Each structure stands twice: as structure tokens, then as C-alpha cells.
């Protein structure tokens, strides 16, 4: 018997389409429940597009994530690499890090509003807080996990300190660092939605709260959720494609 050969890519697409169909049918069967179906969600997205709100809110959210994440990366990664290299510094700072780390970034919301008011700055601050500690720990552990042979080989060839950092330390930590950054970017995207629900008047988080408050527009609420999910997926795929660059990818193939 001849086996039917289908390419792989339609499978997830077919699966999602069948889920959407199930969703629509379920909603149609229970019209008195407040739950929008995929068709009304789609028309909600179209409505947002027509008002120019979708693009505006997406840009606003991405703007905050970019700043918060970039600032956290610029500060936490060099600090974490330094602390990871000089163990004494790490031992001194570790208790402090471990106290701050379990505090949810959302717990900082009142303080953020107190310091920065309602606006971009406070949500950027919240994203920064949410990203800083994961990135710091990632950078420290990336240094700890450099195989001793790479460090010794680097020392053997008589490199200056700066050459050692750029030619051994940096390439040796980059694979772990990129994985940590991808996971942290996911955290940033979670935090921005929460921050926008409270601390600002624009963005995808604000869209969700606003749509509910302004007349129970649950089609727009779910539309916002769908957009958040889709952009989260795109961010993750973007980071993954950076990880796939050959000279960055070495650790996964080597270990």
C-alpha cells in the first residue's frame, strides 16, 4: 500500500485551523455566554487596524520592551560577566541578588508610579527590573560554565586582557547568553502587558483593560491577547534565528 506523503509544514496550520473551527462552533452553540468567537475577534483586529490603534499600541509596547530590555542588557550582562569572572565580587553581592530576584516585577508597580509617574518611564523601569536579575544570573553562570581548557588555551597564546575578553571570553559565553536573553525577552513581553494595564494609557496591555472597561468589548480583549501571543512568537523566533548563526551556535553542537 502506498503511503500518502504530505509535507510537514501544513500540519500545524491544519491543527490551528481545526482548533479555530471548534472554537467558532462552540461559541455559536452557546450564544448567551460572553466569549467572542474567532470571527468576531478577527473583525475586532480589523476594527483596531482601521482606527490606527493596533499599530500605535504595538509600537508603544515594543518601544517600552526595547528600552527596558536594552537597558537591562547593557547593565546586567557586563556586570554579570565581571562578577562571574571575579568570584569574590559574586560572593559579596550574591545575597543581595538573591533577595531582589524573587520579587515579582509587578510588586514594583506602586514604586514605579511613585518615582516615574504614569507613563513610558515607569513601564520601562518595570521591564528593566524584570529583566535585570535573570540577565545578571545568566551572565554569571555563562562565565562559570566556560570550559577551563578554553581559558587556558587563551592564556597560553599570550593575549592581552582586552584581546582575551574579545577573543575568548565573549565568544565562549555568547551561546548561553543568547539563550538567557531569549528567555528574558519573553519575560519582558509578559511584564509590559501587566505594566500597561496599570501604569500607562497606551499599548497592548492598556488595550485589553480599556476594551473591557469601555463597554465589555471582549472581542477586542481577545484580539489584544492574540496580537500579544503573535508578537511574542515573533520575538522568540527572531532571537532563535540569532542563536542559529554558526559561530554563535557552537555550544549546542559541542556539548
Amino acid at each position, binding site marked *: 500500500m502506498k503511503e500518502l506523503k504530505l509535507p510537514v509544514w501544513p500540519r500545524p496550520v491544519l491543527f490551528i485551523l481545526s482548533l479555530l473551527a471548534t472554537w467558532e462552533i462552540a461559541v455559536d452553540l452557546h450564544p448567551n455566554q460572553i466569549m467572542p468567537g474567532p470571527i468576531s475577534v478577527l473583525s475586532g483586529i480589523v476594527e483596531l487596524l482601521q482606527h490606527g490603534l493596533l499599530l500605535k499600541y504595538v509600537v508603544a509596547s515594543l518601544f517600552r520592551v526595547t528600552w527596558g530590555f536594552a537597558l537591562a542588557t547593557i547593565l546586567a550582562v557586563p556586570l554579570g560577566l565581571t562578577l562571574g569572572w571575579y568570584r569574590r565580587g559574586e560572593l559579596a553581592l550574591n545575597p543581595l541578588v538573591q533577595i531582589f530576584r524573587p520579587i515579582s516585577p509587578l510588586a514594583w508597580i506602586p514604586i514605579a508610579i511613585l518615582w516615574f509617574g504614569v507613563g513610558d518611564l515607569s513601564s520601562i523601569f518595570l521591564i528593566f527590573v524584570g529583566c535585570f536579575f535573570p540577565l545578571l544570573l545568566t551572565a554569571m553562570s555563562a562565565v562559570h560554565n566556560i570550559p577551563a581548557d578554553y581559558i587556558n*588555551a587563551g592564556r597560553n*597564546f599570550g593575549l592581552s586582557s582586552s*584581546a582575551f575578553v574579545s577573543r575568548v571570553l565573549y565568544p565562549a559565553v555568547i551561546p548561553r547568553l543568547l539563550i538567557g536573553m531569549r528567555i528574558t525577552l519573553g519575560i519582558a513581553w509578559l511584564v509590559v502587558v501587566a505594566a500597561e494595564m496599570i501604569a500607562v494609557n497606551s499599548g497592548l496591555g492598556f488595550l485589553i483593560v480599556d476594551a473591557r472597561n469601555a463597554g465589555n468589548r471582549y472581542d477586542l480583549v481577545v484580539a489584544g491577547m492574540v496580537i500579544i501571543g503573535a508578537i511574542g512568537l515573533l520575538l522568540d523566533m527572531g532571537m532563535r534565528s540569532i542563536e542559529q548563526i554558526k559561530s554563535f551556535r557552537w555550544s549546542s553542537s559541542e556539548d
Partner: protein
Amino acid sequence: MSQAGAMVNSPIAGPKLKVQHLGVVYERDGKSTPVLEDLNLDVSEGEFICVVGPSGCGKSTMLNAMGGFLAPTSGSVNIDGEVVTGPDRRRILVFQERGVFPWLTVEGNIGFGLSKLSRTERKERIAHYVQLVRLQGFENTYPSDLSGGMKQRLQVARALAVNPDILFLDEPFGALDSITRVIMRGELLRIWQTEKRTVIFVTHDIDEAVQLADRVVVLSSRPARIQDILTIDIAHPRNISSPRYLAIRDELLKQIGLAYEI
């Protein structure tokens, strides 16, 4: 091929490498463990020395101390009459595995220590060593796509490219399968005979030592002392079933305390 033997005996001013009363003690949790005790060894220029001993006896520690990666607790290591105080590009250590940089291609690895050369000089040097270790066609390949034996050849090429006086090899073929290991021994001998460097080679493989070395240093179990130094007076290429070879091999096995029969 027979010059290798002659070279060893050629008269030179002093030993290339002189180990004097070398001792290393590891301190951990307030407990001190002596690893090396009063090692004394003179190595001449161009000599091929193998170091064997029971596993965990401190062979690698000895190599690390000679290479300057580890400060001795007592005694000293002198190279060309100079006390070794740290790693130096004139003497390169080749590791068992994870030695090559996985983020660099074959060319990038061989050229790692050559950043001070001009572009054309660097290119020539890289091409020469690619040829020497027979990695032609793999210049732009990353180590993850090379076999274990190719990676070790690459590591040797990277070491030789900076023109070191001494090569320290820490069980460089220990992670390879037995067939590749035999091929690699031949390759290393060929390279040693063309490049004429002093080689200190740590191994746990008796046959490897008898096939490669001019002299074999036998270490005792921990704390390691030099138990004996055997001179292998067989010219290359060595016939591994000749009576002389077998006699030396047996002597070495006896030294390490292994029975003749299993």
C-alpha cells in the same frame, strides 16, 4: 627518518628544560594533599619525552606546572635557564579535548596566535600548517563538523603555528578510538620529525609511550615521584613486534606494576 635519533644525542649547551625538586601540594578545605614530590628531570632540545604513571597520579599536574599554568609549591621549572612563572606562547599545551575553539573555523583556530603577523604572512603560515596536519579542504569548517582525530590535529597545528620551542601534550589522543589513535601517533611522529620541537607527552597508554618516546618517565602513584626513566634506543620507524620493543614494553609494564597476564 633516522636523524631524529641523532638529533637527540647532538651536544647542546644545557638542558632545554630543567625540573628541579618540583613539588605541588593541593590545599582544599584546610587539608593539604601532596600531588608531586621532588621531581627532577632534564630534557634536551628536540627530545621526545613521554610521561606515564597510574591514573590520577599527577601527570597532568606535572605538565601544568611545567607549562606555567600552575605555580609549584616547591622547587622550580627552568626553560632555557629561565624560571617558568606563567604560560607563554613559546611553549604550548595541547589538551585532551575541548582544546580547539568551537567558534572559530579551522583557519581561525590555526591563526589564533598569529594576530601580530601581516595578513599575507598569516595566510602563508595557516596554509602551511593546514597542509602539515592534512586538513586541506576543511579550512572553513567549524570544529563541530570535524572528527575527533581531525580536531586534535587542528589543535597541534594551532600550537605549532606560533612556532613554540616546546609542545606539552596532555593525553592528546586519550579520547580517540584505538584505530585513530594509532594513525595519530604516526602523524605526530612525522610532524615531530619535520618540525623538530621538544615534546613532553603525557599518556596512560604504554604502547603509545614505547612507540613515540626517546625517553619514558615513569611516575609512581600519588604523591608522584619519578620512579624510573627509560631510554628507548630503537630508531624510527619502530617495529612493534621486534624483541627489543617487546622487552622495553614489558619492562615498562612491570614498572607500573601490571602483571604480564590478565
